[in-house]
């Protein structure tokens, strides 16, 4: 902090600028289909409005993409997070149904998620199985484990403490929003105020040379998958608490893909290396804003996936290296040929005369 030359602020802002612009466009689309989009009032003891919904409904993907960003930064991928959500939700529900407190249930769910993360980490870091294959195992098997826990039905519960984590509010704000904001801030500071973030990036760029440079890559890799498992567990608890029941068949279904998409929209490379959790979180909000446009538009549901695909395609095209190059060239050539317009105008005028 004492060295003003490496002050991170301007660079962070520059890094997340594209995501901010895209988010602004996505929100503007919402306003276009529903003019009262930004209207927020206080109803029934809670903030009530579409913007709150975007923040609230974006919580599961936002939580998942915190862990996913770290995993992807190490050149890995975690396909199991959706299934881990189902397991964690099932474990939490089963624990409170057994008569334990919500605190115990939360701890049990986090423990289950942590174990799943350790398992993935073990396969990737110790057995050296390719991450996409290693985590595919749990992606397929995890939902079965969750169904075993819930015995194949929707396990409903009435525990007020647990329900508060998903459907409750703190000072009017839905709890999930506060949870993902807090965890996002915690992890961002954890990796950026220490050397941890840099070490993770080093593994992603070149694991062998980072190991030769003295980084204990094996432990770090396991830790990264552990964090991903814990984030998924928290997301799973929130989703289950939101509907007061653990739905092993549907909880977190396909959300791993949304989480990966959020990381990609956040401008992080799937080939590992430099990462930005803040940008990924913005990516999650962008996805949720798009979902919101679809719901508010009132179009028949047959259009849902087409609209989503088109919007996301647009975002990815804008972010593609070639278009990025083009924008860079435009900018670079911007200030230099300032006299150009005059030069260009003159022959035009002459031609007109």
């Amino acid at each position, binding site marked *: 902090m004492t060295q003003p030359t490496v002050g991170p602020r301007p660079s962070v802002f520059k890094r997340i600028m594209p995501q901010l612009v895209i988010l602004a466009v996505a929100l503007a689309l919402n306003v276009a289909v*529903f003019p009262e989009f930004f209207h927020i009032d206080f*109803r*029934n003891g*809670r903030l*009530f*409005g*579409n913007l709150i*919904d975007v923040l609230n*409904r974006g919580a599961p993907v936002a939580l998942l993409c915190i862990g996913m960003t770290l995993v992807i930064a190490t050149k890995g991928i975690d396909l199991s997070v959706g299934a881990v959500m189902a397991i964690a939700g099932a474990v939490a529900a089963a624990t409170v149904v057994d008569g334990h407190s919500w605190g115990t249930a939360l701890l049990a769910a986090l423990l289950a998620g942590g174990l799943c993360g350790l398992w993935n980490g073990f396969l990737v870091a110790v057995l050296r199985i390719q991450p996409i294959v290693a985590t595919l195992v749990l992606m397929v098997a995890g939902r079965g484990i969750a*169904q075993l826990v819930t015995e*194949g*039905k*929707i396990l*409903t519960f009435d525990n007020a403490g647990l329900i508060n984590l998903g*459907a409750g509010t703190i000072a009017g704000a839905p709890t999930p929003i506060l949870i993902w904001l807090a965890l996002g801030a915690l992890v961002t500071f954890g990796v950026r105020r220490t050397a941890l973030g840099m070490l993770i990036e080093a593994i992603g760029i070149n694991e062998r040379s980072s190991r030769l440079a003295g980084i204990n890559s094996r432990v770090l890799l396991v830790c990264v998958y552990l964090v991903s498992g814990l984030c998924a567990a928290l997301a799973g608890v929130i*989703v289950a608490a*939101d*509907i*007061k*029941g653990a*739905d092993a*068949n*549907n*909880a977190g279904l396909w959300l791993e893909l949304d989480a990966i998409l959020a990381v990609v929209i956040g401008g992080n490379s799937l080939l590992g290396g430099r990462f930005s959790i803040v940008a990924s979180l913005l990516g999650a909000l962008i996805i949720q804003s798009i979902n*919101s446009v679809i*719901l*508010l538009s*009132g179009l*028949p*549901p*047959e259009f*849902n996936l087409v609209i989503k695909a088109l919007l996301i395609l647009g975002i990815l095209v804008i972010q593609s290296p070639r278009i990025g190059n083009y924008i860079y060239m435009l900018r670079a050539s911007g200030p230099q040929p300032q006299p150009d317009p005059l030069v260009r105008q003159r022959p035009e005028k002459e031609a007109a005369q």
Partner: protein
Amino acid sequence: MTFKTTLLASAIAIAPVAAFAADMTIGFSQIGSESGWRAAETTVTKQEAEKRGIDLKFADAQQKQENQIKAIRSFIAQGVDGILVAPVVATGWDEVLEEAADAEIPVVLLDRTIDADESLYLTAVTSDLVHEGRVAGEWLVNEMNGADCRIVELQGTTGSSPAIDRKNGFEQGIAGHGNLEIVRSQTGDFTRAQGKVVMESFLKAEGGENICALYAHNDDMAVGAIQAIKEAGLKPGEDIKIVAIDAVPDAHKAIAAGEMNATIELTPNMAGPALDALEAYLASGAMPAKWIQTESKLFTSADDNEAIFNMKKDLGY
């Protein structure tokens, strides 16, 4: 192997003549445990068989047609008196059904129909999805009694046959009543979580006070929507009337609590009518109709939902 099968098949051919009354053996190939309703269907089928003193051989296909075909072949080899199948897909059944026909074992389809010649099976016991939607629509017509009503609809998974048929049925039910209008319709994927999310957006886009009724294609979405309505500070069941389909235990619980108004039962008892038809056929050769429609019973607050909930909650929903 072939010799063995031929031997068994010839044994089966005379088996029904020998023992059709008391100790009847029926094979049941179930799809798997894809949903709570499916689990309830399995439980009820076992109960129905036990009630009639039938020896039920149960095979879980784990969502795979090849397992179902294997199960049917093994039933044929075991020489059962009849076979119940809940087919996982509509096509590819001709060969194995011909084998059953050669062995003179009647096959009854449960819950779903198939693309095969009608002569290959005895009958199909299914619900009428369009009829279910129509019952829901007619209930709302009576309930509103001419008053204006803006309806929001939570559809099932886009493109699935229950979603298409239940939508069409409801529209038929309210057709000709200008006071009823569907103002928003969006998919909730048959899940609680999506039902809640989509209802939240309905409440904001239309304004909770402007919505008079909710029609959900299944109870799970309605249960999710009830929570969204409560969180918006409105009273589900009073401020917004709610009608859905399936009659799962949680829907009865919601009706008992006054948070939901009506549900139409998709009965898990497909085996009852199926076994009736099988018994009649085996006893006297009476051919049933090719399609037996199950009853789509309407449940409202007039029923004892507390008791129904307690009865249904152990069926495995």
